[in-house]
């Protein structure tokens, strides 16, 4: 039987899915043991037990200096920046994307500009941003926003342009003005793609957040990783990396769920 036609049984599927994770864990444990055997003080690959203890401590024992649970503080600060930055980018992109997609005048004006802007590497602009927007929350949020807004805008304007011309004409024959076409035809059909686009750009948003927090911050997940990098506290770094992964996964899952719930008419295409 051809390989393309061979399907694993249900039980086998579960085992197979766990396989690469197990392999990764095993590789880590072996590597860690080898290094720790050579140098028990080695910080690079701490034993899984050490990571677990560190993780438990980070999540439950308040920091002696501030009396706060640092992870939760960092998480809250970073998620706030992420939410505002991505939210702003989404709002700007939605308005600009719809405008570009719907109105020929604005399309001519901004389509080329956005295409060029989306090629500017935001990380190279980081120094400029800090100087223009200061070192506070604003510059971090702005970095996230200008990092993902051009991509989102292009995506959304293309989605609006992809709405069949027939629908636009039909709306006009029902007496819809430009505003009504925007609000009742284009907007509802663009929103699911907005969520999809946000899901796609969240990876980049995290990058920008971490990069910005590394430069100037006193709280946040990226800040903490950067801070302890100086001391090679890999147990803390790995805890934070895993935590960020969990957060990213949860956000992605939530967005998909929202999208499925909110836009039943999209059917299976989400």
């Amino acid at each position, binding site marked *: 039987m051809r390989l393309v036609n061979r399907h694993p049984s249900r039980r086998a599927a579960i085992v197979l899915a766990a396989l690469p994770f197990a392999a990764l864990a095993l590789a880590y444990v072996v590597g860690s043991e080898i290094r720790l055997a050579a140098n028990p003080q080695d910080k690079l690959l701490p034993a899984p037990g050490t990571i677990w203890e560190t993780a438990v401590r980070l999540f439950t024992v308040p920091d002696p200096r501030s009396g706060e649970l640092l992870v939760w503080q960092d998480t809250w600060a970073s998620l706030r920046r992420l939410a505002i930055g991505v939210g702003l980018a989404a709002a700007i992109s939605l308005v600009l994307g719809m405008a570009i997609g719907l109105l020929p005048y604005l399309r001519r004006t901004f389509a080329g500009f956005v295409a060029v802007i989306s090629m500017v590497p935001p990380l190279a602009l980081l120094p400029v941003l800090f100087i223009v927007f200061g070192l506070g929350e604003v510059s971090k949020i702005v970095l996230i926003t200008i990092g993902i807004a051009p991509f989102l805008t292009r995506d959304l304007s293309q989605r609006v342009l992809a709405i*069949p011309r*027939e*629908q636009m*004409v*039909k*709306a*006009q*024959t*029902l*007496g*819809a*003005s430009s*505003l*009504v076409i925007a*609000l*009742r*035809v284009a907007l*509802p*059909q663009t929103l699911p793609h907005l969520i999809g686009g946000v899901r796609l750009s969240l990876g980049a948003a995290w990058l920008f957040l971490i990069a910005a927090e590394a430069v100037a911050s006193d709280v946040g997940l990226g800040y903490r990783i950067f801070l302890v990098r100086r001391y090679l506290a890999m147990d803390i770094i790995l805890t934070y990396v895993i935590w960020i992964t969990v957060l990213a996964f949860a956000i992605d899952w939530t967005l998909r769920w929202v999208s499925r719930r909110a*836009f*039943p*008419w999209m*059917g299976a295409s989400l």
Partner: protein
Amino acid sequence: MGVAPRLPVDGGVVVSFVRVRGLWQSYGGRPILERIDLDVAKGEFVSIVGASGCGKSTFLRLLLAEEMPSRGTIRIEDGPVAREPGRERGVVFQRYSVFPHLTVRANVVAAESFATRRGWLSRAGRQAARDRADALLERIGLAHVADAYPATLSGGMQQRLAIGQALTARPRILLLDEPFGALDPGTRLSMHDFVSELRAETGMTIFMVTHDLAEGFKLGDRVLVFDKPRWDPHEPEAFGATITYDFDARHGGIPYQIKEDDHAAIHA
């Protein structure tokens, strides 16, 4: 060969509801339609047939005022020339004629709410519009799926909805561009009955483009054939199409050869 426009005459007076005069359309210098003159009486059902790519949809777009002709005018009841689509011209396309993000009922209500300033009816108006929508859905046999989304409907039901929606806006003319082109034969037949009934009820003036000559003759009062009257073998695209035949389909006088195959298909 061109044909002289056949004028609808009512008691000796020419009554023309839709009047097309000297219509030309070309894209990028390439003529598609040439010298079209046409008068259509109120309530007439005009079928339009012709080879693929000859400009039938283009003619419908011009009637719809979706685009402007290179030359010539189209007027309804000698009113002004329309510059963009509006409520006086309803349309149903082969596909994408209903809004996928609205339920069946909301699609019908949209025909009222879209004409408001922001696209939403006031609270008071909403319930009334819903009731009217439900009445229409009852009539077109879609009451049982009023809360479903179009994607879950069959092609025939979607087109029925599209026609109902278009009629709810009370247009003065209704344009159909191969409305049944994507349906299977059985559904097609029941759609014919549906359109005939609706037409009998509303007396709407209808233009329908179709690929299917038989369908054109079955439904239409008149059948217009679009074709290129002039032909330059060295430059096939040098000339545009126009109305080459204008048949009366009402009185049984069909100068049209039914293909043997059609019978063969049935008697196998």
